[in-house]
């Protein structure tokens, strides 16, 4: 600014040098309107998209606004596909499900203030289920930070407890490093959401065109584990071989680490029974004869009995959540030696102190464990058996005849397990009316391994978890830890974009669907042929079930009396709608829906009295289940 305050001695300066002075000044302190103008050269916003492309991002989900104008300008020159939902919450859920379905990092974008605040639930959802996500938010210009100006919210402060890490970018020079660090942190170790808050002036600030950049990420204070301790793994192998009643308890970590195939090898080699958590569904095919079903509050009787009765529990990629342990960890697997494998050291000993802790990536640890097990048994004794896969929907047949040394000592254990399975199959009431089991059975029939099932949250979620025949990892997508109603429809959008060749089924309820029903428009706008199976009972079924059992049927605020005609709603959005009244209609309508090229909504009318069985009541251990008639 010196030239402005210069005294009259400058009067003699020629016009050209005056111009030069002004040009120099521009370089030092660029006026706002020039940097914001569309003709800008390389800047923060362009840098964001360049690094998104560098990180392999193909789709982002976002909603524009005042504080992200430079970003949306730069978007026009990017190869990245942008999907515009109707609410930021849907952007983050879609990015989350995109990550779950593809294994890649999901990316969402929102403006400052309300835009950022609308992302909060979805960020928490991703955090609870350890989903790799990068959330980018616009922020008010740096000189207005902290002044409560229009659409300002302290989003890094708000999201501190629900992100793996977060950044407020105050200097555009830090932006390339921060972008790369965010992706690195989101996808490595125990994955999770990372938030980058970028003030508008930082987006618009010029950056030198990158040359010979250092793309390496090096964060001194960030470490994660990969291989497990060899000594601990050997100890685990010995314990596993000695056990007479072993059980695998597998969770989302199997899916994150891509360990499903190695897990199946371990199961087949030692003929081990296995239960999964809700997040672990898909870590072993549902029709594998050794799979005893989901464990916990709405788990199968056999799975819960097996946990209580086993003498060794191999817990992999799980966190002993209260939906599994019933919050009574002193009554959980009390007879068992517990081996806990997890990539997050803080999960080990958080709820249950294991006998053999192993910190590491589930896949790498299981590989080493399998090698050790084969060594222990002697190579001639253990040839991986044929896979235990059975045809879909068949009842598990007793397998004792297949057992040979050294797994023959498990015969008595398997006998007990098969008796439980015969005595307590999953069953349903009222076979003449359309019920959730009919719906899911029809879905299993018409669907195949090429489907993805996305659920919302509530009774329908538990029915889907219990009954859908999931064949592979990343085939079942659900909001587990946070239990976010409204996750389903946006998540089905994300899953369909991640896997355009697959059939995406959304199983939802009339409560959940109406939390994000505006996203029907997004499916149409983006030509996403999601098949929506709406279990419509006119009530908030899960809450009703809880009130019915634990509040003596003092029902409170669970009636959804003025539900719209969902078929008409679908029609209004240009979506094909069907109403399903009877069990016989279900399968033909599903087939018709699959034949439709676009999205379809099936309004399946089920009774409000349908109940999720079994159920572990609050305060009871997991083997003390309530069973249906």
């Amino acid at each position, binding site marked *: 600014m010196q030239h402005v305050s210069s005294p009259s001695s400058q009067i003699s300066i020629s016009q050209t040098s005056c111009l030069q002075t002004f040009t120099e000044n521009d370089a030092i302190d660029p006026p706002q309107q020039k940097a914001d103008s569309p003709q800008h050269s390389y800047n923060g916003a362009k840098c964001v998209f360049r690094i998104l492309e560098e990180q392999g991002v193909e789709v982002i989900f976002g909603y524009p606004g005042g504080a992200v104008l430079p970003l949306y300008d730069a978007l026009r020159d990017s190869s990245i596909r942008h999907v515009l939902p109707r609410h930021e919450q849907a952007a983050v859920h879609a990015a989350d499900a995109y990550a779950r379905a593809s294994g890649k990092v999901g990316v969402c974008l929102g403006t400052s203030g309300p835009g950022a605040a609308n992302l909060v639930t979805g960020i928490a959802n991703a955090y609870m289920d350890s989903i790799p996500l990068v959330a980018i938010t616009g922020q008010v210009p740096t000189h207005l930070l902290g002044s409560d100006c229009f659409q300002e919210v302290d989003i*890094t*402060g708000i999201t*501190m*407890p629900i992100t*793996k*890490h977060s950044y*407020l970018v105050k200097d555009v020079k830090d932006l390339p490093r921060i972008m790369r660090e965010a992706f690195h*942190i989101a996808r490595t170790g125990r994955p999770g959401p990372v938030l980058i808050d970028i003030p508008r002036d930082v987006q618009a600030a010029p950056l030198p065109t990158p040359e010979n950049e250092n793309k390496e990420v090096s*964060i*001194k*204070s*960030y*470490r994660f584990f990969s291989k497990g301790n060899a000594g601990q793994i050997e100890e685990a192998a010995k314990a596993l071989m000695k056990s007479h009643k072993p059980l695998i308890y597998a969770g989302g970590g199997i899916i994150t680490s891509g360990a499903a195939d190695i897990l199946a090898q371990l199961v087949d080699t030692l003929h081990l029974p296995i239960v999964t958590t809700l997040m672990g569904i898909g870590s072993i095919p549902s029709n594998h004869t050794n799979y005893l079903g989901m464990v916990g509050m709405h788990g199968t009787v056999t799975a819960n009995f097996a946990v209580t009765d086993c003498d060794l529990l191999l817990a992999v990629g799980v966190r002993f959540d209260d939906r599994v342990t019933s919050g009574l960890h002193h009554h959980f697997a009390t007879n068992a030696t517990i081996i806990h494998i997890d990539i*997050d*050291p*803080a999960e080990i*000993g*958080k709820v249950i*102190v294991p006998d053999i802790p192993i910190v590491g990536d589930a896949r790498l640890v299981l590989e080493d464990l399998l090698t050790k097990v084969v060594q222990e048994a002697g190579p001639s004794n253990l040839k991986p058996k044929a896979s235990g896969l059975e045809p879909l929907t068949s009842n598990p047949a007793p397998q004792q005849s297949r057992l040979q040394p050294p797994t023959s000592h498990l015969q008595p254990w398997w006998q007990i397990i098969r008796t439980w399975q015969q005595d307590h199959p999953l069953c349903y009431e009222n076979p003449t009316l359309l019920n959730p089991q009919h719906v899911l059975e029809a879905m299993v029939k018409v669907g195949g391994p090429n489907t993805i099932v996305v659920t919302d949250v509530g009774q329908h979620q538990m029915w889907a978890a219990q009954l859908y025949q999931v064949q592979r990892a990343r085939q079942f997508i659900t909001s587990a830890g946070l239990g976010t109603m409204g996750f389903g429809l946006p998540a089905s959008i994300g899953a369909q974009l991640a896997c355009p060749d697959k059939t995406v089924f959304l199983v939802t309820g009339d409560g959940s669907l109406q939390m994000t029903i505006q996203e029907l428009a997004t499916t149409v706008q983006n030509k996403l042929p999601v098949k929506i199976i709406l279990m419509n009972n006119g009530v908030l079924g899960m809450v009703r079930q809880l009130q019915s059992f634990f509040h003596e049927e003092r029902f409170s605020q669970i009636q959804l009396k003025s539900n719209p005609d969902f078929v008409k709603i679908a029609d209004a959005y240009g979506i094909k709608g069907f109403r399903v009244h009877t069990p016989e209609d279900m399968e033909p309508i599903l087939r018709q829906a699959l034949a439709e090229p676009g999205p379809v909504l099936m309004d399946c009318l089920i009774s409000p009295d349908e109940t999720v069985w079994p159920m572990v009541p609050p305060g009871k251990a997991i083997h003390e289940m309530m069973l249906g008639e």
Partner: protein
Amino acid sequence: MLHTLAVLVENNPGVLARVSGLFARRAYNIDSLTVCQTENPTLSLMTIVVEGDTQVIQQVIKQLHKLVVVHKVTNLTNESIVDRELALIRVKVRPETRAEILQIVDIFRGRVVDLGRQTLSVEVTGDEQKITAFIRAMKSFGIAELVRTGRIAIVRSEG
């Protein structure tokens, strides 16, 4: 039981919020927290005194390690350390109590740092018990104002 943790963190805005937020969210009890710069200007040292049994402390340490801004956590509790707190106390003084107060200050190796007509300000350093004992000794004279730092600690050199 009280544990003393030395937590080496990035010297950035918001780091204190991340650490204190973690303690609040997971319901760990902070007894005292002291932050200072280190010889490396990009790093700060937090000395945190936290209450809990072994399992809780292990969780605290593991959870702290998960914060990207945390470089190192050392549990000094079972180490051979020198630890200090500092207190500044303004105590009420009358002509007939002045001598006694000064004598006690002397016993505790405190220092008079300010003198007024009705009060006297004393600086005293030492471990927690010593500071507490000194405060107790001053109580009978009447404490006008008291400020006290949290604990800072350093590992004793070997040999």
